Structure formats: structure tokens, C-alpha cells
């Protein structure tokens, strides 16, 4: 029975992986802030790469299974670390900008101006690859 199901299981896993990768890319295109984009892209590893590796490993060859396990373990361990590093630097730079403001910055939950991280950064620039140097990573215009 397992031999009969195996190729279909591989197909299903490959399609699941592709679907999740597609959703991650759609999220990266559509989401307005860096944090939301990180949230969308963070899903691409656990449910995107790992099912593809599992689909490759259903052939049962020891060489493929071993390599797939190593790649899956490495990617699962490192993706949260790099996501956390990006989010941490965005937060630290955002806090630095807030402190430089004359009003001392916005305290969450007390009303007043919304956090810069809650504002969209306007999507994407024209296709010349240039960045606006007056904008921070959260889309805020520097004082």
C-alpha cells in the first residue's frame, strides 16, 4: 500500500510547499510594513521548504534522505535567527528615532500619534533601485 501511495504523497507535499512559498511571496508584495512582511516570509520555511524536502525524501534513497534531513534541520534552525535579527535592528533603530523627537516619542496605549511602525512605508519605490535616505526602516521620515 505504501508503495502505491508514495508518488501521490510526494506530489501532495510538493504542491503544499509551492502553495506556501507562493503565499509568502504574495505577503511580501502586499504587506505594508517590514514587520508584516517578516510575518509573511517567516511562514515560508516551516511549511514551504520542509514539505519540498520531504517530497524529495519519499524516494527512500538513503543519500537523499540524509541530505534532506540535514538541509531541513539547518534551515529550521537558522530562519528564526535571521528573522529575529532583522526585527531587532528595525526595533532598535525605530526606538532611536523616537527618542530624538522633541515630544519624547509616542507611548503605546496612551493615545496620540500612532507608532511609525504602524504606518505603511508606501509600498515599493520605482524600479530604479534607489532608496529614500530620509526614510527609516519603518517608513518614518527622519526629523
Amino acid at each position: 500500500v505504501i508503495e502505491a501511495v508514495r508518488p501521490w504523497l510526494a506530489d501532495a507535499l510538493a504542491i503544499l510547499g509551492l502553495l506556501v512559498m507562493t503565499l509568502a511571496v504574495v505577503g511580501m508584495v502586499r504587506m505594508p510594513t517590514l514587520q508584516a512582511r517578516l510575518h509573511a516570509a517567516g511562514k515560508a520555511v516551516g511549511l514551504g521548504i520542509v514539505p519540498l524536502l520531504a517530497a524529495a525524501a519519499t524516494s527512500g534513497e538513503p543519500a537523499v534522505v540524509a541530505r534532506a534531513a540535514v538541509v531541513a534541520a539547518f534551515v529550521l534552525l537558522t530562519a528564526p535567527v535571521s528573522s529575529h535579527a532583522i526585527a531587532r535592528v528595525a526595533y532598535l533603530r525605530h526606538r532611536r528615532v523616537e527618542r530624538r523627537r522633541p515630544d519624547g516619542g509616542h507611548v503605546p496605549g496612551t493615545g496620540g500619534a500612532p507608532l511609525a511602525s504602524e504606518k505603511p512605508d508606501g509600498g515599493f519605490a520605482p524600479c530604479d533601485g534607489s532608496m529614500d535616505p530620509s526614510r527609516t526602516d519603518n517608513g518614518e521620515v527622519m526629523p
Partner: protein
Amino acid sequence: VHEAISWVAIGWTFGLVAVTTALVFRSRSLLSRVLALDTLALLLIALLVLVGDWRQSPHYLDAALAVALLSFVGTLAAVRYHGGGDLFS
């Protein structure tokens, strides 16, 4: 994975790579760009896995591991340098 599904999956992943490359060039902030590059590396790993499965060769997975390693180190280095601290704290 069946042959037809393999072909469709490889073509689809190439499309995702194209979209993510456009995202890399068009993102407004440096951190968004780094995130897009990280996702691009992830898509390259997916492409290598799919091609390796189609060609029935385990050696593509070695290349996938190398890409994963380089993208991790590159992302961390770029982000920490951008953060202004030193790279190893």
C-alpha cells in the same frame, strides 16, 4: 514526484524567483531588501530541491545546503552592520 508536477513546480518556482528579484530591486528600506534577499535564497533552495528530485540526484541538496549557509551568514552580517553594533554581539 511525477514528471508533469515536477515541470510545473520548477516553472512556478522560477516565477516566484522573478517576483522576489523585482522585490529586491524595488524595496524602499534596506531591511526590506535584506528580507527579500533572504526569501530569494529560500526560493533558490526550493528550486535546487525540485531540480534534484527531477534529475534523481542527491548532489543538488549539497548545493542547497551551501546556499542556506551563505544566506544565513550574509543576512546576519548585513543586518548587524546596518544596526551599527559590532557583528558578534
